[in-house]
């Protein structure tokens, strides 16, 4: 990692720490949510932004993480740490299975297959309503959200827990894309056939990318359920497959900082516009159209293209 890239990561994470002390409690709550959702976007970005695989089924991984944590806590009396591990294992297993099958296809077919798997997962969460309570979802009681005496429903604790999860995911991907493995993913995105004819096992690399991306997304789902105390089938719906794509596109696909920027941008866009009008989705839609027209590479992507060429 070059010095300036290390500095960028340090400054970005530093800002997130400082933010807590600067902004109001209301925004602290927002940013805790943004950071957890940004973990989801970071996971999505690995597959879409760096590997060039467009999945429309990531809600499956997010929800797998969410239920992988929440169900064992709710029904099996798991403590938070084993429940989080269970979420990671579930997400890894589900993403391996989806990757194994979906990667037999490519392009549009890959999008459709992942979408169908996610829909199957969504329907399954409704079907198992006896345990998941379907759309209505269920609340994880405060008593179950305590690790070593620390109450994770407390706003301060929650903010910094969200920060640590985000920092871990962010640095993991920032490191990964600098390894030969990560560079091969970029090569596959740029020209798959060429990467194969340079001797890379393209299928294997893509499969690992799906698994890593799915597991990081699952970690986001688990963190969301744990920190905000709720798990529901809405998070498995198609909307939650589209959202990370939107965040990554807005922020800049294939940039390390893009997912956070895109998530925060979309979050506050909805937040502000719903203050102005009940037709807030119209404002959001307009913003997306404008960005696609004038900044097709996303916010960080345009910055990289126009100003800071070395942006990772």
């Amino acid at each position, binding site marked *: 990692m070059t010095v300036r890239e290390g500095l960028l990561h340090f400054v970005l994470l530093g800002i997130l720490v400082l933010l807590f002390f600067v902004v109001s409690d209301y925004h602290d709550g927002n940013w805790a949510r943004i950071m957890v959702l940004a973990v989801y976007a970071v996971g999505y970005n690995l597959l879409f932004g760096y590997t060039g695989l467009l999945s429309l089924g990531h809600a499956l991984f997010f929800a797998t993480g969410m239920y992988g944590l929440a169900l064992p806590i709710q029904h099996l009396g798991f403590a938070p740490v084993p429940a989080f591990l269970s979420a990671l294992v579930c997400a890894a297993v589900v993403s391996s299975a989806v990757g194994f099958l979906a990667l037999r296809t490519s392009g549009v077919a890959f999008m459709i297959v992942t979408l169908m798997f996610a829909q199957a997962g969504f329907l399954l969460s409704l079907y198992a309503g006896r345990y998941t309570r379907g759309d209505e979802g269920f609340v994880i009681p405060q008593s179950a959200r305590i690790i070593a005496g620390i109450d994770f429903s407390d706003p301060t604790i929650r903010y910094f827990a969200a920060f640590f999860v985000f920092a871990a995911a962010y640095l993991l991907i920032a490191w990964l894309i600098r390894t030969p493995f990560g*560079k*091969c993913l970029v090569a596959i995105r740029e020209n798959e*056939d060429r990467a*194969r*004819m340079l001797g*890379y096992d393209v299928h294997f690399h893509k499969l690992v990318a799906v698994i890593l991306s799915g597991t990081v997304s699952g970690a986001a789902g688990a963190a969301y359920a744990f920190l905000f105390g709720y798990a529901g089938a809405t998070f498995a719906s198609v909307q939650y497959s589209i959202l990370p794509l939107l965040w990554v596109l807005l922020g800049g696909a294939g940039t390390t900082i893009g997912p956070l920027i895109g998530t925060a941008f979309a979050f506050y866009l909805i937040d502000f516009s719903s203050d102005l009008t009940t037709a807030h989705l119209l404002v959001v839609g307009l913003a997306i159209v404008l960005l696609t027209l004038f900044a097709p590479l996303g916010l960080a992507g345009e910055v990289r293209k126009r100003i800071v060429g070395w942006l990772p």
Partner: protein
Amino acid sequence: MTLLSTRQLSKSFGGLQALRNVDFDLERGRIRALIGPNGAGKSTFVGAVCGRFRVTSGNVIFNGNDITRLPAHHRIGLGIAYSFQITSVFDRLTVHENVALGVRRHLKANQERVNKQVCAALDKTGLRNRADQLAGDLSYGHQRLLEIAMGLGQNPQLFIMDEPTQGLAESEVDAFQDLLQTLCQETTILLIEHNMKVVMDCADDITVLNFGEVLAEGPPAKIQKNEKVQHAYFGTQT
């Protein structure tokens, strides 16, 4: 010593038989040109050698091992490099990274050795001073050279070049010929080429394909005089 052989190699695409029982032997350290009219099966043949698709029947033997069933990336890993007929570089990556991708695959993460080998490949192809440019910004001729550099970076035992001089200016072709002469000291080259001057000047041996079959094989002088070859190319009646 034989580096590459094929035995009874056949490939059909639907009803079209692109290769028909091709027996082929390539000695180590030679430059072999593969020529033939359009549609003769040249690209299909090297595609079959590299594993870009499955053959219908027959065998490919590389370094004494049967590699017919190996996937493409595995064959490349054994020491075959392939440069594309239609320029296929990573447009949005730097020239350096384009070559480094090939080098890294066999040298792994040793940054210093990777850099050294990348620079060596760029030096040979004269692209060193363009290392930081995006490959997509290079002129066509330089992109062709980058294809060669990417192959060289892999340190191949066998370097397959599919029409490397296609679309190059005459001066660039001359430079390429010089490059080819230096490369043949390090690696074995299988060259698909339409430019007869390059073929006649550089190749030690020539294999002529026509309708998916080997029509003739031998040193340039002999091939030039071969009536069957003349007939295939010019349609002259003998």
